[in-house]
């Protein structure tokens, strides 16, 4: 056999045989799959089309958001200009205060950055306590409120009267946005009181124990910036059933 293969002509034939065999096999396999995968190719084309549509819609969304921010800013500047020029400084001050209390303005000052995250490498079948649930976020907010927090945001979403936290699959919905871990809560207030309240909480201490390994990290900061509620120009649906008794 060794002698046979050693001959160049025979070696060529064997190689050609193998090549032709794999060629034949590939052609057959391709012909078979062309028939079977016609539907799959249609599906793939439809998915590609939808991906392209989604990309365009998301681009449009980003443009609209920028436009919204600019219009909001312009509106505020014009209101300020007008009220000052017309001598309505008191109305301007009231408006500003009301907007601050409603959560419609960015606020900043000392506070903490609290990060809640799933156990690293969490997989289905692991302890459910190892992942962050909506109840954990609510629990954290309750603790921070008790420690004197004045304002919150979660992953950049300002918490206001219309905010609600709800688990949807592996994500948590807040202000119509789906948030995924890590959840970063910014809390405005005394950094020492706020971080101590988290560090001394029994529930979070239990959830950080080996085996559960939930991540709970409170970081003190001299200055945090909590964004304004992004939909302050779209609150009608949250107040349309409220008849004012006394202004």
């Amino acid at each position, binding site marked *: 056999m060794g002698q046979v293969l050693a001959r160049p002509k025979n070696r060529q034939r064997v190689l050609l045989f193998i*090549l032709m065999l794999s060629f034949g096999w590939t052609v057959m396999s391709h012909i078979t*799959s062309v028939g079977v995968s016609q539907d799959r190719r249609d599906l793939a084309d439809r998915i590609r089309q939808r991906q392209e549509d989604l990309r365009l819609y998301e681009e449009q969304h980003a443009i609209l958001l920028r436009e*919204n921010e600019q*219009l909001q800013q312009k509106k505020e500047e014009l209101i300020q200009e007008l009220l000052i020029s017309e001598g309505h400084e008191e109305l301007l001050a009231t408006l500003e205060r009301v907007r601050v209390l*409603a959560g419609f303005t960015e606020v900043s000052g000392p506070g903490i950055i609290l990060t809640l995250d799933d156990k690293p490498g969490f997989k289905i079948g692991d302890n459910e306590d190892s992942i962050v649930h909506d109840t954990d976020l609510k629990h954290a907010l309750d603790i921070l409120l008790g420690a004197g927090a004045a*304002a919150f945001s979660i992953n950049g979403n300002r918490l206001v009267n219309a905010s609600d936290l709800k688990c949807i699959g592996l994500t948590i919905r807040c202000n119509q946005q789906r948030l995924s871990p890590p959840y970063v809560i910014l809390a405005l207030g005394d950094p020492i009181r706020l971080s101590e309240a988290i560090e001394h909480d029994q529930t979070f201490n239990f959830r950080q124990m080996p085996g559960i390994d939930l991540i709970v990290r409170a970081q003190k900061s001299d200055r945090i910036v909590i964004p304004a509620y992004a939909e302050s120009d779209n609150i009608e649906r949250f*107040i349309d059933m*409220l008849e004012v008794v006394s*202004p």
Partner: protein
Amino acid sequence: MKQNVVKSIAFAAICMILGILIALQMKNVNNDNLTENNLAALQNRLIDVAKKNEELTERNNSLYELVQLLEDDMATGNDQVQAIIAEKERAAIFAGLREVRNYGIEIQISCNPDMKVSATILRSFINELRGIGAQALAVNDERIVAMSEIRDSGDNIVINGNAMIARSRFTIKAITNPENERYIVDYLMDMRDTIANSIQYESYQYDIQINVMPEMTIPALSEQSTAFKIDLLMQN
């Protein structure tokens, strides 16, 4: 010699065709990973973004109209100031600074006289009511806003800094959409049953009553309330 050249060309051509076929095959294999679920998820996302874009376009149009009114030299100062006052009022209603009334749901909660009502129960109802679209909320006529604190403190429950005896009956009021009455009442009844059947709360013997109110009034929250830490909010 000529025969060798022909052989080499044939060999190269076969290799090339083989390569192309393998590549096509790989593409098919990749397509096999795509499912109708991928398409459905994409379509849902697409509908979601399209809806948001439509809503944002409407919001921008309204803002543009307001900006135009504010810029309009021809408009009387009064029109412009009225528009600003209306804007301020909307923000005040949203913030909970106005007393409001309408149809709503009232929940009365009490427990075994030897036990104290737990702040956790009140918070759970408040959270769920928020989730099902309540536009204004109060506990024992204390307006609840985003930064309201409801906590146990000895024999009391402290709400917005005001102590209330934990052994008393607590009344939660919520202005909700009457169109969703059936859903909301069923939801709250389920919640009540869950609490009643919970081993954790067995000894409390909670008595929870849910009533539909054709009209209710929910008081405003004062700007001086501890829920509004205005000094911290306006420090910068």
